[in-house]
């Protein structure tokens, strides 16, 4: 390859390489951005799906519990447990998939709270099941005291569920040195210990109805009172937490958009830098082509014209190299030969 051609080829190859790199970078970064945006949309959709399932499960549990307490349907027990298990399963899926886990803290807490409450209710109800036909009404009318052991046993018996597992483990691992502790207090302590150490968890643990060694420790009380004072309160909290979780993606959309904007800026930075370098290189190429090719040729053309028209000497002021230099020298030789032949 000749000098000029080699230089130009290398220069163009450099630009092509840079273009390729810039293109690839754009492709990769845009792909990453697209994935980021897709993730947010997917998370939003999934959020709503999971929240809907949780609400369904909670509703099912509520209905089952009403059937058990109002109509005394014993088979509703299994329905209660199945609803709870479904709720926990969905919660564990949500915990696995969540981009922002902070919204799930209160939900996990409310679920565990509900589980402990319902489990202890079902355990006691099973124990105190009355043989008489009117027993249902008796059972309906009161909620018996809940000894610690019963709760522990009940909780130990429940198959390990991801969301409730820490609470169960903690509850069953309660030291025997504190047997006098009321069941509800122990459960709440275990609950608080099992959850992430967030202020909300502590506050909830402290204010939980389970934390209060209520009437349950002393006397039986009407089931409607238990339902309205304890279950309904926890159920409402769970519903609120599920709704908060449902809108969590939307709530965090503003900071995420901000983050996406930042990411977009970061993503295009390498491409922008590559483009800037390419512009600099193209400008350099233009400059070098001008001073080493265009200007000498224009100069030679002008000088050759002057020579032919006015017989002015052939002079080229621009710097020549490679083939352009050869061309100039050849023109010089031709002019000299012409002069010699004339003379």
């Amino acid at each position: 390859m000749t000098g000029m051609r080699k230089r130009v080829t290398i220069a163009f190859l450099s630009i092509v390489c840079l273009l390729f790199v810039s293109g690839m970078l754009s492709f990769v970064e845009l792909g990453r951005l697209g994935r980021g945006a897709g993730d947010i949309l997917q998370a939003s959709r999934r959020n709503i799906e999971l929240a809907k399932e949780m609400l369904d499960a909670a509703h099912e549990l509520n209905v089952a519990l009403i059937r058990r307490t109002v109509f005394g349907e014993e088979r509703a027990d299994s329905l209660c447990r199945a609803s709870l298990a479904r709720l926990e399963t969905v919660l564990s899926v949500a915990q696995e998939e969540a981009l922002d886990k902070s919204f799930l803290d209160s939900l996990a807490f409310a679920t565990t709270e509900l589980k402990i409450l319902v489990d202890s209710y079902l355990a006691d109800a099973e124990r105190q099941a009355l043989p008489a036909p009117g027993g249902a009404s008796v059972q309906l009318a009161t909620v018996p005291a809940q000894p610690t052991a019963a709760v522990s046993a009940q909780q130990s018996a429940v198959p390990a569920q991801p969301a409730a597992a820490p609470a169960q483990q903690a509850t069953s691992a309660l030291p025997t040195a504190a047997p006098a502790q009321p069941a509800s207090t122990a459960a709440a302590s275990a609950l608080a210990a099992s959850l992430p150490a967030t202020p909300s968890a502590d506050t909830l643990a402290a204010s939980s109805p389970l934390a209060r060694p209520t009437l349950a420790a002393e006397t039986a009380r009407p089931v409607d009172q238990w339902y309205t004072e304890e279950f309904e309160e926890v159920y409402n909290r769970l519903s609120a937490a599920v709704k908060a979780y449902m809108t969590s993606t939307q709530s965090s959309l503003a900071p995420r958009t901000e983050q996406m904007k930042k990411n977009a800026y970061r993503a295009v930075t390498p491409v922008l830098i590559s483009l800037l370098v390419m512009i600099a290189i193209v400008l350099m190429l233009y400059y070098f082509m001008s001073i080493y090719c265009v200007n000498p040729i224009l100069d030679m053309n002008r000088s050759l014209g002057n020579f032919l028209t006015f017989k002015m000497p052939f002079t080229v002021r621009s710097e020549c190299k490679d083939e352009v230099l050869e061309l100039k020298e050849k023109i010089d030789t031709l002019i000299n030969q012409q002069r010699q032949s004339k003379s």
Partner: protein
Amino acid sequence: MRIDLVMRYVGEVMLFIAGFMLVAVGISYASGMDSAFYPLLLSALLTALLGAFPQIFVDKRVGQLSNKEGFAVVVGSWLLACVVGMFPYLIWGGEFNFINAWFESVSGFTTTGATILGDIEALPRGMQFWRMSSTWIGGMGVVMFALVILPSMGRSKMTLSNVEMSSLAKENFRYRTQIIVQILLVVYVGLTLLSTVLLKLAGMNWFDALCHSMSAAATSGFSTKNTSIAYFNSPLIETILIGTMAIAGIHFGLIYATVTGKRNNLFRSEVTRHYLGLLLGLSLLVAASLFAAEIYPTPTSAFRHAIFQVTSLITTTGFATADTNGWTSFAVILLVFASIVCACAGSTAGGVKVNRLVLAVKMMLARMKQQRHPNAVIRIKLDGVIQESDMLYSVLVFIVAYMMLLLAGAVFGTLCGLDATTAFTGAIACLGNVGPGFGEVGSMDNFAAMPAFMKGIDALLMLFGRLEIFGLVQLIFMKWWR
């Protein structure tokens, strides 16, 4: 002016910088391909391409560079180095937005050592090394690298070094180009390596030892730790760094002459005596002030911290072992004075320089003498050499210009809402290439909280300081380029 030739030389400097980026890539790879790997690799490729392009078209030419061409190579190299130096920061991200990356890059190449990073330790190793490399390259002088890699030897290099090195240094020590290369190898590289080994022996790991040695030899002050040298809390490490910084503040030619047993050596230099005297005197005064104010319980601990901070500021390094914001006003004023005067010409330090201070004082004394003896012919000598009036005039002009720029920097700072201490000492720190100031930009703080506009102004001050003010001013006058 032969712009193509200038582009070729600047391109060679870019290739050198790309080489250092590749070393940083290697370190990033060795650290388990940390997050700096791809940003550094891409930056190295882009910089190399930018540097290689002029090599394709412009042939090596025998001949010399004119003054203007030499100047253009120096300023062009420095500015372009700062531009390509921010590529890795920008691509990596983190705390670096455009202005922060520009500030950090300029701070590195001008050996200022000021940072916008709130958490330096969060940087991956590759990026840490690149920060140190930029400052080390800056310390050696982008143009000095150009001298090393220039293929032809001759007067052209002297043209470059006339701009690069302080004109005072060049007037006093007319070195030939080959010797400049030797000086760099023996003094700069030697000092860095020696310091690295000593710091390693003193308890640092190899990476920290190398990084801090590079930073100390370049009188930069970049550290790999958020709390700078205070992190190590080791008198031995501090002593080694005091030695390194103090040596780096002396004229490199004199150190070379001393090492090679030349007659015109360090011990005969009046400027060096003044520099070392100033360093010790200020340290003692600061230590006495700190001890008297009961900031430190013992004279030894007061002296330990005082000498480190004074050496760090007078050599324009900027390492810290204590928060000087809590020191007495007297100590702070002395440190501010040290930040303005700085070390010797011909070193990597910035600032007014002891040479100019000595000459200015001699001129004042001569003026007083002249008033007493109006007809007397009074000559001003430095190191036994009579100084020409042109030289003395340029010294005064430089000092006046320096003070005016300081004032301008402080005014801009206050306009941006900074308090007077921060604005004024921030301007001193940037113009003198020192690094830390006082107030919000104290020794344990950084420039992150500064408004973006002020960061831009500070970066400009750093460039002014590094190019001895007039080097950059000439760039503005287009007529000069014709």
